[in-house]
């Protein structure tokens, strides 16, 4: 059994993802949080093997949360999930110690497969997302 933590502030996505992944025989969701600053404390209690972490979350962004999680619970591997890649995301995610970077809307099969690969120590990078996130520097559109 691969134990999963899901961190996403979009409750609808998180709930549906949890239900979908739980249908896989080898995956089990052991914790869910909606804020970046709750990732580490939840992980220290539930001891997941893999954390799926959304980038844009209140409290602390998912990439910053990944860095802390990797430090506090190194046995837990991190798969960063997002709707949009933005310039700099991929570099920051890798720097923070994430093993994977995929879009949220990946088909369930692919998502489950990405989780298994990350769990076995492989790196997973969604190519389309990488293309969006590779560029250095801020987005040319006015930042918030």
């Amino acid at each position, binding site marked *: 059994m691969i134990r999963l933590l899901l961190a996403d502030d*979009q409750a*609808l*996505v998180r709930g*549906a*993802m949890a*239900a*979908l992944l739980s*249908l896989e025989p080898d995956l089990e969701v052991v914790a869910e949080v909606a804020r970046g600053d709750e990732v580490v404390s939840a992980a220290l209690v539930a001891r997941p093997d893999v954390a799926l972490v959304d980038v844009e979350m209140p409290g602390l962004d998912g990439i910053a949360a990944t860095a802390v999680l990797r430090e506090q619970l190194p046995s837990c591997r991190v798969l960063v999930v997002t*709707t*949009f890649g933005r310039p700099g995301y991929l570099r920051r995610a890798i720097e923070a110690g994430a093993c994977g970077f995929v*879009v*949220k*809307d990946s*088909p*369930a099969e692919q998502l489950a497969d990405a989780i298994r690969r990350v769990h076995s120590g492989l790196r997973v990078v969604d190519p389309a997302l990488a293309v969006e996130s590779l560029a250095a520097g801020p987005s040319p*559109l*006015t930042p918030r």
Partner: protein
Amino acid sequence: YFGGWTAFRASVWMLGVVFELDRSRQVQADLAVAEERLRFARDLHDILGRNLSVIAVKSELAAALARRGRDESADEMMAVRDIAQESLREVRDVVRGYREVDLATELSGARSVLRSAGVATRVVGEVSPLPPDVQAVLGWVAREGTTNVLRHSSASTCVITVARDDGCVTLTMVNDGVRSASGESAGSGLSGLAERLGELGGSLTAERLDGDRFRLAARVPS
């Protein structure tokens, strides 16, 4: 140093330049508006992206539940339908917004253009929801007023006020730095505005105030 001929040529050339500068201010105003709309579009993409992610994940879940003969699948599908309809409404609102003049956008465009021309500009009052035709006409007032400030004054400050009182909305622009009457014949910008306002039962006043100031005020029932 310049001889007479050169000076003449130079001033003809300058006339052309001044003309181009005017156009360039208009372009600047258009750019500010376009950029504002793009910001809007980007925000819309963010919202839609999020909604589409929910739709993708939930519909996959619904299919998985249906395959297992589980009753919740119908509920999941109806939830997907609701999200799709909600998103559709948002797209429609925004697309409509492209075709209409949106007063808030025009005002923020005006402010940013004036500021970038070195005019300290404040927009006072709030634009409560107004009917589209009122927004459109006041949007035109803001544009023409802004162009006039740039063309006919060396303003260092400008205050734009939007206010509501007994059944009317007024938009007022006051700037300083009015140049002494140039004698050049006035154009048709303000009279065009007065006409548009008249069609909605409104009116326009434009007057020189003390202290080199100019006030443009549009009033329209709403």
